[in-house]
């Protein structure tokens, strides 16, 4: 029997990406849904991005509908002014500001041109050692540009009715790449260790399909690592019709409720030698469409499936149980962490039998199509 289990009553500990840093840098307050509430994001006069609980600690006014006044965000209800450190800095109509006037603030970091915040239901200080790495050659801070990589193409997809663990399961799910994304994974490995989980995959497109990654002349070499619960960097060497491109895909999300999250993905392409910026940008657009289409194929599955605590696996499946054991660490109090959640684990899937079967199935599909065309 399927065990649906119950979903956690908490949100993961770790760094979560809110989007491109540049999208918050216009001197206005911005709203981002996350962790069961709304957050307010704004840039102060020093250029620093700040993130607070979006609802005012005074009487619950919506700070995202307020204004930035000086370095502070001002509430539309009674004009209380909040600083990036979470303290109330000024109440224009009051003799003094109560010392206790503090609200929930999130520690921030800018990585690869994106704004990340630290979440921890236990309230620990942010752990900067486990931030995702800075990608060499990619613009890091606000205002920087890169000569070697195209600007990020950034997409935001709100997902209702699924817990974000469904997205994580993909890391260990070899066979869905054939059925959902239309590619043959010819080599598939995982390594989980500490706060990181990696998938190594080589795949080629299915010649009998044209959506998703389906294409006889598409070869992918992919290395994808989750740095913590919610931010994945996917390095892709794409070979399309003999033309090789280096693509970096960011796949990140922020939970918004017990069974909803906002999926975000970003694409940058290493500008190929001798190709002008416009063409490079066009290539990145094409890949953004392809990988974006891939995500939507997953979304359709998630929104129609049920959660399962006890998946029943065959020997061609990846290490779903070990992956979930790794993921569980982010929902566990630090004092209760178990070594096996973070101990190094390696797994290589044997894709031989699967590929034999899939090749035959694709050949049969092609033959059927041909005879129908005659």
């Amino acid at each position, binding site marked *: 029997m399927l065990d649906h289990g119950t979903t*956690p009553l908490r949100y993961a500990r770790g760094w979560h990406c809110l989007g491109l840093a540049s999208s918050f840098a216009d001197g206005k307050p911005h709203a981002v849904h996350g962790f069961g509430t709304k957050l307010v994001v704004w840039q102060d006069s020093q250029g620093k991005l700040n993130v607070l609980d979006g609802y005012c600690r005074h009487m619950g006014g919506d700070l995202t509908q307020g204004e930035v006044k000086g370095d502070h965000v001002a509430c539309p209800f009674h004009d209380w002014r909040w600083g990036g450190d979470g303290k109330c800095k000024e109440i224009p109509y009051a003799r003094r500001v109560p010392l206790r006037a503090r609200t929930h603030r999130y520690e921030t970091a800018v990585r690869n041109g994106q704004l990340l915040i630290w979440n921890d239901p236990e309230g620990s200080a942010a752990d900067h050692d486990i931030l995702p790495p800075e990608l060499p050659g990619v613009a890091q801070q606000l205002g920087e540009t890169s000569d070697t990589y195209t600007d990020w193409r950034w997409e935001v997809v709100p997902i209702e009715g699924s817990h974000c663990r469904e997205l994580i399961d993909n890391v260990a799910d070899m066979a869905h790449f054939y059925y959902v994304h239309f590619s043959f994974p010819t080599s598939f490995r995982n390594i989980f260790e500490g706060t990181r989980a990696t998938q190594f995959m080589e795949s080629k497109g299915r010649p009998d399909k044209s959506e998703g990654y389906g294409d006889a002349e598409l070869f992918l070499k992919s290395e994808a690592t989750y740095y913590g619960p919610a931010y994945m960097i996917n390095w892709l060497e794409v070979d399309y019709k003999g033309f090789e491109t280096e693509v970096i895909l960011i796949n990140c999300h922020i939970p918004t409720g017990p069974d909803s999250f906002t999926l975000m993905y970003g694409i940058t392409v290493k500008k190929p030698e001798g190709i002008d910026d416009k063409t490079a940008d066009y290539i990145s657009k094409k890949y953004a469409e392809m990988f974006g289409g891939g995500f939507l194929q997953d979304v359709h599955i998630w929104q129609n499936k049920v959660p399962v*605590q006890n998946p029943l696996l065959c020997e061609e499946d990846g290490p779903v149980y070990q992956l979930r054991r790794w993921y569980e660490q982010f929902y566990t109090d630090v004092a209760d962490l178990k070594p096996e959640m973070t101990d190094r684990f390696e797994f290589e899937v044997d894709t031989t039998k699967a590929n034999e079967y899939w090749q035959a199935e694709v050949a049969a599909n092609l033959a059927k199509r041909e005879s129908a065309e005659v």
Partner: protein
Amino acid sequence: MPSFVPTSPTTLEEQRLYTQARLVEVACLDCLAKVAVKKNSEHHTSIQWNAEAVEACPELGRREGASGSRDGHRGCPRLLASIDVAVREGQIPIGAEDGY
């Protein structure tokens, strides 16, 4: 605080099967690392390390700092060679038991 809570007791048994059953200890022939290995087929390998073993492996020790580079997540070729030897010597039974 409850996390992903199974509602059926058999789920715990399944978790144990998939993560702990049929593991065989393999000692690295080049260092003091001991890991737990399972092989469902010739090409499949599952390797469970613990902190002590990672500490003992000079190959993994050479990796760069915590979150920095991508080398951080490569395997150790010497350990893989040691597993191959153990397989050849018949120390690791090959074959999946009902998929786990």
